[in-house]
């Protein structure tokens, strides 16, 4: 008798959905953990058998290769860690500019395609169909070849404005010599924005304009670092390399067509009654688009746009094909110099994962804010 009571207690427990769910989830979790441990054990055993070991010590060793222009200031002789940071900086640079331009292109092309003018709508459609129906890698090589072939060499560089040179080595422009006043101006700008946000007054937005100007008043006379042709190349100024231009251009050209279609879908997804209501209130077409249609269209478009921005970041790794010094380039050199293939690939994968998750997080945050505001 007691045995039977026990069994019925167990089966009663099993009868509860919550208990059943917990058991299954814990079981699945343990199975996944066991599989991971098994993989890890295998990897360790086999690496040991091939007398390979895993470790990230090499990151502190000196890397002796040139990467070209990078935001971190890495040069040959610095550590691999700094080289990876430089590659990451270049990747981020392209991704950030690319995402901003893709968003603009997407909105513009979507609106053009919805225009009632058949010529504009047709041109937008033609662009979309060409851009999204050809492989990105080919587009990338096409634009790079175009830039390198069409533009003249440095000695015959186009010189549209004094100090600005356009050649197949890139766009070279003068830069302002750095002085402490610029630092103060940047700080003043940040302070101004913070104050303006806190003041919640429209007039307060004059602050971020006036404060930096005040800081600049203390500056020395402006000294420009003007590029000059010396020997093979231009010395001085700053260079926008053909590889970077081609990469950003190709990514925006390709990804912009997808963004345009997504946004167009979002706009068409706004109920017709709402646009008619806006019109009956006397709003102009432009105002109705800005105040009624776009906020609602964005709600529909943001989730798919998020994944397009993520694929832009990931697609930037195609840069290797044209020689833009991004993260993958650093990883490839590190592999052939140190033989740390597993580690380098793990670093690269982890970086792209983090970048994608960060993009998703930011976009989801924006989406949540839009939904909350209930515009």
């Amino acid at each position, binding site marked *: 008798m007691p045995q039977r009571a026990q069994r019925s207690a167990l089966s009663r427990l099993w009868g509860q959905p919550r208990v059943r769910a917990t058991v299954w989830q814990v079981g699945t979790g343990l199975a996944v953990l066991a599989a991971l441990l098994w993989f890890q054990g295998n990897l360790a055993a086999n690496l040991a058998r091939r007398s390979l070991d895993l470790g990230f010590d090499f990151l502190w060793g000196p890397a002796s290769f040139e990467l070209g222009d990078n935001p971190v200031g890495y040069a040959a002789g610095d550590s691999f860690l700094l080289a990876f940071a430089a590659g990451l900086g270049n990747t981020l640079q392209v991704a950030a500019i690319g995402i901003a331009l893709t968003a603009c292109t997407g909105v513009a092309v979507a609106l053009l395609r919805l225009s009632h003018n058949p010529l504009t709508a047709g041109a937008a459609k033609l662009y979309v169909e060409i851009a999204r129906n050809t492989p990105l890698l080919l587009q990338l090589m096409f634009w790079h070849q175009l830039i390198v072939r069409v533009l003249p060499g440095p000695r015959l560089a186009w010189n549209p404005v004094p100090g600005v040179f356009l050649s197949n080595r890139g766009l070279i422009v003068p830069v302002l010599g750095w002085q402490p006043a610029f630092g103060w101006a940047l700080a003043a700008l940040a302070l101004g924005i913070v104050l303006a946000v806190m003041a919640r007054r429209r007039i307060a937005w004059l602050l971020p304009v006036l404060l930096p100007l005040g800081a600049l008043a203390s500056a020395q006379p402006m000294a420009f670092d003007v590029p000059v042709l*010396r020997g093979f190349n231009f010395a001085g100024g700053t260079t926008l390399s053909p590889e970077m231009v081609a990469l950003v251009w190709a990514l925006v050209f390709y990804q912009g067509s997808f963004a345009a279609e997504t946004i167009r879908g979002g706009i068409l997804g706004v109920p017709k009654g709402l646009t008619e209501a806006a019109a009956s209130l006397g709003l102009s077409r432009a105002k109705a688009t800005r105040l009624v249609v776009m906020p609602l269209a964005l709600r529909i478009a943001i989730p798919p746009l998020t994944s397009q921005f993520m694929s832009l970041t990931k697609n930037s790794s195609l840069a290797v094909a044209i020689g833009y010094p991004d993260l993958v380039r650093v990883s490839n050199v590190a592999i052939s110099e140190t033989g740390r293939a597993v580690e380098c690939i793990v670093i690269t994968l982890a970086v792209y994962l983090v970048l994608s998750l960060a993009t998703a997080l930011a976009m989801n945050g924006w989406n949540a804010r839009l939904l909350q505001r209930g515009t």
Partner: protein
Amino acid sequence: MFKSLLVAAALLATAMPALAQGTQSGSQLKSIRDRGVFKCGIYENVPGLASLNAQGQWVGFDVDYCRGMAAAIFGSGDKVEFVKMTFAQGIPGVKSGEVDMAGLAITDTVGRQTELGLDFIGPTLFSGQAFMVNKRSGATKLADLNGATICIVAGTITDSLIADYFRARNMTFKSVAIETSAQLFPLYEEGRCDVVTMEPPFLATRRARLKVPADHVILPEFFAKSDMGPIVRADDVMSAKAMKMVHWAVVTAEEMGITSANVDEVAKTSKDPAIRRFLGVDGTMGSKAGLTDTFTHNVIKAIGNYSEIWDRNYGKPFGLDRGPNKLTRDGGLQAVPLWR
């Protein structure tokens, strides 16, 4: 990106027990024999080194070494599976066991032999790192190259050697790193970079295919030495040694005057004990090394001696002089152990 991911995937995959092959001494040779085919990594299109001919067959200096390995192990130079690779894929490919050997003209360095655990066949090709520039640039010596934009193949030893060279002399340069030399030379020709750097044999074979070869000059100075050869794994000493013997065999054959045309005849008629030992007519040197006694005969039959390999790939098509790659008795560097 995707290629290096594939390599990493291969590295991880071979780490799995189901696919793993043993690494005990001599077992690499055994696993190649069990597989029935020699897996050899080569470039997709580097004239002279590896390319497809009009008949759709792989030809080239390192391709010949791949066939030589197959001839030594299986008796037939056709039992090769060619795996197309970029430079950056070669070392991970060999270490993971994706290929048995990578014939990518990789420069022999101490670091690659110790830290990376590789062994080198040869060096099969003695050379150095040199620059090629357009004549219009007016550069005639290395010191003229300050500030130049230089095209290099990504991940090669050049990538770091060149940085060392310029840094040591307070010179600057900008690098454009491209994955394959097939992509690199069009960019150089269109003027994306002023200078391209590589070993002179490869500069010369590439120059022959530019639009106006006479416009380009290879600067005579070397900025570093570069002695190259196919790479194999170093952890399996006996297997690595057996593969090295293929290079020793082709050089010894040249010293003895044995060619692919006369090897059958010589093996039958020669009374010279040294030649009889070398061709495996007498003695058991081949089988003691884990191969067959007559493997030298098969290798010479399949690919010829060193001078034939040179003429077929560099001499006849590109008119390249052997330079330091002559036999030691002719004042060159091609020295191999005495066959005894």
